[in-house]
């Protein structure tokens, strides 16, 4: 169906990176979790509570 990479020369670093789906999985989980979720939760947890809230 599609090309699957037939060159026989040295494999470029970017290509190696894109072929490593488990590295992509790790980065795809870690980057948004840190930048969106963890950072957001940290900000929420650091909001001072109103004095009337027990």
């Amino acid at each position, binding site marked *: 169906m*599609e090309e699957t990479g037939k060159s026989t020369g040295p494999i470029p670093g970017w290509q190696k990176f894109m072929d490593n789906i488990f590295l992509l999985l790790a980065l795809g989980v870690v980057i948004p979790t840190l930048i969106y979720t963890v950072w*957001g939760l940290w900000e929420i947890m650091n909001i001072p509570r109103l004095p009337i809230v027990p």
Partner: protein
Amino acid sequence: MANQDFRICSESGLKVYKNAETLIKWNVIAALATLAVGGLMALLVALTRWPSVHLLGLTEYYRFLTAHGVDALLAWILFFEMALVYFASTVVLGTRFRGVVVGWISFALMLIGGALINVIIIMGRADVMFTSYAPLKADPLYYLGVILFAVGALIGFIMFFVNVVYAKRDGGFKRSLPLGSFGLAAASIIGVLTLAHGAGIFIPAFLWSLDFIGYIDPSAYRLVFWGLGHSSQQINVCAMVAVWYMTSAFVVGGKPVNEKLSRTAFVLYILFINLASEHHLLVDPVLSTWHKIVNTSYMMHLAVLASMIHAFAIPASIEVALRKQGFRSGLFEWFKKAPWGNPAFAAVALSILLFGFLGGITGVIFGTEQFNIIRHNTFAITGHFHGTVVAGTTIAFMGFTYLLIPCIFKRQLIWKGFAQIQPYLYAVGVAMLSIGMMSAGAFGVPRRHYDITFSGAPFSFTFDPAIDMFMSMMGVGALLAVAGGVLFILIGFGSMIWGKEVK
């Protein structure tokens, strides 16, 4: 592996193993069934929001709107995505499904979870809308249903990686996954993150509904929920783009002009597209400006860049393929001679066009802080995501169904004339629906609202009379889209049952 375990698809030349074929079939069947339920709910909801009709009562409206969100936005899409990831990790790679029992457990969990959610909603014990924002509390079985469904889908995405590992070992591919499978690898990666967020918020919500936890912070709920709610739409974007590439390859023999660039665009999706969840929180006073700007303005536009790459790469691949077939006269002979009568091709072309101009562009605009403050929670946002999920993803998946029926179900399409017009009918309807919603939203019409005339309210408010035209446009569009949807369901199920067998 004995030869009788697989067959060669006469349409595509792909090797189809029996165990993968059966799993793909049942996920497609479940997807079409949930689309039918979600579409029925859509009709009832649209006819209620159309002020001239205002069909349902107050309680039923919010109940059916909740069911519409769950069935059309989660169930139909995720069941079909399970079929896609299984197809891309077995049939495309010419290998069998590894751990087929786990695949069936995934399917059973999704089926039981989806059924449980629907039953609880229809019983009136979960009138909490799709978002189920705390402190709105539903029946514990509602949350349990969502957890079962999400765990089932998570297992399905994990099975993609398992199948890919075995396919590489068995020689299904050497170094790089085929581009369509790579796109679905991106979708599976986003799926893992998304469903982990689902577990992260729905397990505490389940315990809270059982009174094991006394309190859930609404801000934290919103933040983590959108790590599920919006990111699940990013799975759709990746899967949809993969379907665009695969359909282009199957129907016209299209190959990307620069495959590395297309792969790079998928990597940008993997790394940055999930940060778009922040859109839902841009008017939230809790999060800092830095959190909002970094997530939407800086990182998210790298994902937008990826969409721009795909938007040029796929039409270019189609043009090059058609020119190679001899349609070289002038600038546009290839365009005129494209297989517009093939419903799979037509669906993909319409999906690219409508996703780009209705869903994508509006998403980028509404996703900026300055504009979001004006449009947030208006009907314009509903118009935007119907431009992405329905006009983009659903139409693309409908088109791919027309390829799966002969390849996986071994049946010819019935009602071929109707199948040819179905994508156009559905696309015109959804485009009218989406534009009507966005235009009404521009005049301040709120999303989700049962009665925008505010009858019986202690104060009065009148919208600009122009909204009558736009709300009617939305209503007529909904009717056309439902007609196209009914046609799709009838052709889909009819072909599976009565279609002539493909040898």
